């Protein structure tokens, strides 16, 4: 740890904060928020080396800075909060009815939960781990994502066919953007800031300019697209098609289809490894995980998962897979895809979205 601090001093001491040698942690990094802000800034500037270095440092002090995984439990109307350093549930937060979607924004200390049955969003403070606001939102709020700067939340209303834009300071809906039919997953490009919406019943993806607040492009994808994952380098989108059992791979600049990868039965969600080199896809009816090499776009492995795996998020070298049928989360070690922990959560756990928020 001391060695690591020395390296950081030489290359990346930010804003003249003093470094103390011989210390086990990195005090000049201050609290977790500062660490995460550095990481986000480095990644936004695509300084991959710094990005990975900061990520490593973040992980190195994981005992103090470990993020939480927020697992929405659609059947018990609450969120199980898993401390990823301990790999156990440390809090259960009651939210609205039938929670499904989740988006975490660590820099602003917020997690947003969509509750389709009570037609609202629960706003969670991630320091206190409790709900600090509830915003009525649409008719069937489902997919949810946060803008890179945390100022806006984008919410797909599955019954009204619109994307709602919510101002996170005013805690109000500020725009309604018509999209396609049965919008499900929402994702934000961390570099270009575009918003993507999967229109489940139209088999398309809407690309939205956040400044113009309108649809700039509609792209045809596979059958029943549900979730969208975007690479950290902002170069590609991966759209999971529930009915055609495949993943549509799109170039984020040209919006063209660059490939399709066949996966297992009824895939739902996906997550990328930190270096964007692996895409992990949950196959809900096969009870498996497909591991795709994003360079060759080939499935490298198919791993047995729990019952009806759905939500998935990556943190460091671990993949957290939410098993809806089993009401638990499997923690996979991505070096060998062995399960290192199984964590019981609430009922009908879904975790649909970026439920960790920190790489």
């Amino acid at each position, binding site marked *: 740890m001391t060695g690591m601090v020395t390296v950081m001093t030489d290359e990346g001491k930010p804003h003249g904060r003093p470094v103390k040698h011989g210390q086990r942690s990195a005090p000049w990094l201050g609290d977790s928020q500062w660490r995460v802000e550095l990481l986000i800034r480095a990644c936004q500037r695509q300084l991959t080396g710094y990005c990975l270095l900061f990520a490593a440092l973040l992980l190195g002090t994981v005992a103090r800075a470990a993020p939480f995984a927020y697992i929405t439990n659609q059947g018990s109307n609450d969120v199980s909060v898993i401390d990823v350093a301990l790999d156990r549930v440390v809090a259960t937060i009651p939210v609205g009815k039938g929670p*499904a979607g989740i988006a975490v924004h660590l820099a602003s200390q917020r997690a947003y939960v969509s509750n*389709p049955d009570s037609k609202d969003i629960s706003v969670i403070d991630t320091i206190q781990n409790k709900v600090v606001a509830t915003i009525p939102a649409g008719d069937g709020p489902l997919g949810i994502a946060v803008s890179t700067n945390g100022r806006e939340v984008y919410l797909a209303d599955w019954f009204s066919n619109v994307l709602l834009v919510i101002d996170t300071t005013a805690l109000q809906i500020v725009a309604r953007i018509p999209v396609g039919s049965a919008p499900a997953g929402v994702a934000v490009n961390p570099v270009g800031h575009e918003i993507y919406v999967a229109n489940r019943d139209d088999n398309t993806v809407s690309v939205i300019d956040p400044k113009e607040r309108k649809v700039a492009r509609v792209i045809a994808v596979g059958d029943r697209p549900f979730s969208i994952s975007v690479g950290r380098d902002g170069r590609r989108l991966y759209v999971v098609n529930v009915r055609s059992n495949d993943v549509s791979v799109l170039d984020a600049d040209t919006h063209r289809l660059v490939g399709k990868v066949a996966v297992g039965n009824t895939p739902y969600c996906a997550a990328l490894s930190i270096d964007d080199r692996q895409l992990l896809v949950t196959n809900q*009816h096969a009870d498996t995980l497909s591991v795709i090499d994003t360079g060759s776009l080939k499935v490298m492995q198919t791993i047995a998962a729990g019952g*009806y795996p759905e939500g998935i998020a990556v943190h460091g070298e671990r993949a957290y897979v939410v098993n*809806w*049928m089993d009401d638990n989360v499997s923690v996979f070690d991505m070096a060998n895809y062995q399960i290192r922990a199984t964590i019981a959560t609430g009922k*009908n756990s*879904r975790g649909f979205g970026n439920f960790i928020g920190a790489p």
Partner: protein
Amino acid sequence: MYKSGVAAAMLIAANLVLAHGPSRLKVTENVTINAEPAKVWAKVGDFNGMPAWHPAVADSNASNGNNVGSQRTLTLTGGGKVIEELEEFDDKKMVLKYRMKEGVLPVTNYTSTLSVQAIEGGKSLVEWRGAFYRGYPNNDPPPDRNDEAAEKAITGVYKTGLEKLKRVVEQ
């Protein structure tokens, strides 16, 4: 006549579009049977064999036996049909999985897994579990097609089936 025709057409249309409500539901039922797994699997591991052990199923007609993709049309004793497609069949692990294509059950997007496991004392544990959405895909469902009705229907199918299966195998 016309009204029920329209309602039926809408139900079929809804199934084809795979539209569904916001909350996915699940039911798991199990039964312990005093018999070796192989004997139990001989009954449930036959995709076309439900009439022999399920009181609600009068007749069954499968297109391709226990091969993946096989479609069975179940004629229910109370009238009506259910069409299901086999998605997985593992003879060794004694698990089969299927998906409902259409039918008179008040559910949509319904998939199910039936499995047999060995337990102590030469007995078997049969587990039947399903995932589905309510019959009415939009908000404000009528009482006969809401979440509760869906859960009740599937629970009924599983409970009555497993009860009779136990009697049939143990006799």
